[in-house]
């Protein structure tokens, strides 16, 4: 800091002060909450529940964020239509599979097969939508300036949103409640809602699975090669277009699965449901370091947990009323801080000139 003052670098100084103020505020709020008991009195169990609730929301963010990060990794473009991939699979699976199966009682008699059917439908519809979008809206523009696919992505996002509104209407659609997932597990004295536990476990399995898919399989190697350098990868005999399509499909499959888990937890779906989780997941991907798979996962979990714990912890400690309304402020303040001080994200690598 002294060095900056000596060099007369006032912008860095102001940024330093900004960081110091944010950190001090958070610390002050936390200390006031934990040691001086400002606001509600929470038990240890309450804190554990805040944490778990944040973890389950965060694992959904993580699954969606993977799609952003994978596509960014190979194409260096932000696929703003990704939230619609998430919505399309979920909405279709809810209307055509989950609701009929639930009405006939099949879902409650054989919940595992029922959930598998819902998952498969959601993932395949999401993949289909993603492949179609990639073929029609992105592939023809592969050589265009970076701004162009960004704009078509926004257009594609609107198109899919209103397409699905036309198909399924604009009302909220209830997602059926599974009898086996009603109630709570007690783990180490903490009661966890069953749906939250299932979401956390399922997401962790999928995150690990995806990591191994990219790191250990031949297709994964091709994806990494294309991410490294498309032209050289093509020279090595890799079908670049096909690999890019696979990348889109993989990300969309994760989004489709995330959508079903979203349905399980929140039990309502609607055509506009992709927008906010999409933006949050994009934030998570940037937080973790866009382009990095463990980064997206960590970013998502961090974001979910901060959103859940931040308001009762330091916002209440600072005496701010109605803190939960401000969780988006926490999310986007985190994003701004990361962009200022660690543009490569929490565990992202510093990008070479060509990628940046």
């Amino acid at each position, binding site marked *: 800091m002294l060095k900056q003052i000596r060099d007369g670098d006032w912008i860095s100084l102001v940024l330093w002060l900004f960081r110091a103020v944010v950190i001090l505020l958070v610390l002050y709020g936390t200390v006031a909450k934990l040691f001086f008991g400002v606001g509600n009195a929470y038990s240890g169990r309450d804190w554990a*529940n805040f944490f778990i*609730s944040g973890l389950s929301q965060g694992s959904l963010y993580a699954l969606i964020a993977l799609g952003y990060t994978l596509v960014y990794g190979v194409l260096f473009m932000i696929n703003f239509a990704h939230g619609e991939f998430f919505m399309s699979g979920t909405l279709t699976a809810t209307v055509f599979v989950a609701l009929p199966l639930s009405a006939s009682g099949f879902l409650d008699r054989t919940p595992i097969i029922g959930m598998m059917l819902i998952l498969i439908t959601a993932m395949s519809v999401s993949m289909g939508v993603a492949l179609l979008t990639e073929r029609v809206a992105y592939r023809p523009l592969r050589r265009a300036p970076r701004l162009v696919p960004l704009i078509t992505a926004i257009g594609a996002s609107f198109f899919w949103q209103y397409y699905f509104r036309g198909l399924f209407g604009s009302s909220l659609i209830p997602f059926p409640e599974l009898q086996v997932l009603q109630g709570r597990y007690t783990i180490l004295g903490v009661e966890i809602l069953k749906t939250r536990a299932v979401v956390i476990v399922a997401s962790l399995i999928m995150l690990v699975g995806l990591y191994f898919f990219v790191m250990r399989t031949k297709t994964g190697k091709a994806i990494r090669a294309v991410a490294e350098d498309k032209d050289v990868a093509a020279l090595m005999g890799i079908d670049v277009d096909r690999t890019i399509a696979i990348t889109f499909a993989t990300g969309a499959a994760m989004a489709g699965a995330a959508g079903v888990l979203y349905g399980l937890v929140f039990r309502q779906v*609607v055509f506009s449901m992709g927008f906010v989780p999409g933006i949050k997941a994009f934030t998570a991907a940037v937080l973790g370091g866009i382009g990095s798979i463990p980064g997206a996962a960590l970013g998502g979990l961090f974001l979910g947990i901060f959103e859940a714990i931040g308001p009762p912890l330091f916002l209440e400690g600072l005496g701010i009323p109605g803190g939960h309304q401000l969780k988006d402020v926490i999310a986007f303040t985190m994003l701004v801080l990361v962009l200022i001080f660690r543009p490569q994200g929490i565990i992202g690598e510093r990008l070479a000139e060509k990628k940046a």
Partner: protein
Amino acid sequence: MKRTILLVTLALILILALSACGSGTSEPAATDQGSQSPATDSSAPLVCNDPLSCVEVAPGDPIVIASALVITGPNEQLGLDSQYGVEIAIDFYGPVLGHPVQLQAEDDGCSAEGGQTAAQKIVSNPQIVGVIGTSCSGAGVPASRIISDAGYVMISPSNTAPVLTDEATHQAGYLRTAHNDKVQGRAMAEYAIQVLGVKKAAAIHDGDPYTEGLASVFRDSFIELGGEIVAFEGESADATNVEPLLRTVAAAGPEFIYYPVFIPLGSLITKTARELPGLQGVYLAAADGVQSPDFLSAAGSAAEGMFVSGPDLGFANETYDRLVEAYRNKYGTAPLSVFHAHAFDATTLLLRAVEQVAQKGADGTLLIGRQALRDALFATSGYQGVTGTLTCNQFGDCADPKIAVSIVENGAFKAIWP
């Protein structure tokens, strides 16, 4: 590359600037000063000496009114219900001074941005005489300013936020036939304390003028009646994970939770509250923003036993029965929400005022003064409408407010109080 970005940015700024200007320049320039009498059927040429401006309706042309209601999205049933009320009122009223009435329906999107867009679209059409809308108070705040500034008049059938008719913030062209939430919030507080006998309550809002206004009135009335508010919380309207919020509320130990929000957040809160161990046996209550079949289907069995405050639809008059019958015949459904009667009254008031103030030329041309129209509407007194006896005060509150508390029972709303 840099040049492209610069050009795109400049183009965007230009488009924004043009669209901002475009809306303000649409006043018909007909303000000749001359001797003038409120002449109907005189053979003298019509002269407009209205301080604002006049709408001229040529012979055979329709009188155009606009609606700005939420007719798409998760809250569409609220707005469609009102729009049906408007359409039936136009049918029932018939031609006005020999001119048919035409409706231009806009969407308020139940948001500030939606209200602004709808209002700008409306004031860019100089033929529009008056506006029925908006549905949501959040949209009403910007819309009432734009519409009043342009000299138009609007009557909302379902804005209930106190801020819209508050002395300090009221806009000159704004009236409403819906109740003011000062009444609704108070009714819920009375029900909670006097009937349910609870002492500790929590209130949750989403920051929108409607929900925050209603939650605040409930809080103040509840305290005034001798209760204690243990938590007053906010949540964003498009939130998904409401569990932390409800755990915060649960930690404060309320016996009663009032969350006057819209359908998506309302059904999430209802379902999550039923799952949390800390909130078992706590009374849940919401308001007219969720009083529609979409909410019941989204919340499902979790909604059973919760309370909802809203306008009392027990209108004992023959016109209301005819209205509901026409509604069923025309749209094939029972009323979707609770403000169709208020929309009916608002529309009838507007058409009646047009009939009062319009000057009719020999050839059937109508000249409608905008200030005269406003004056006629604000002067409404003792009008027997479907929703009761309507009298407008100087800040635009016209309603004869009757509030009922309903309970959700077997997947339907059932009025239980008063």
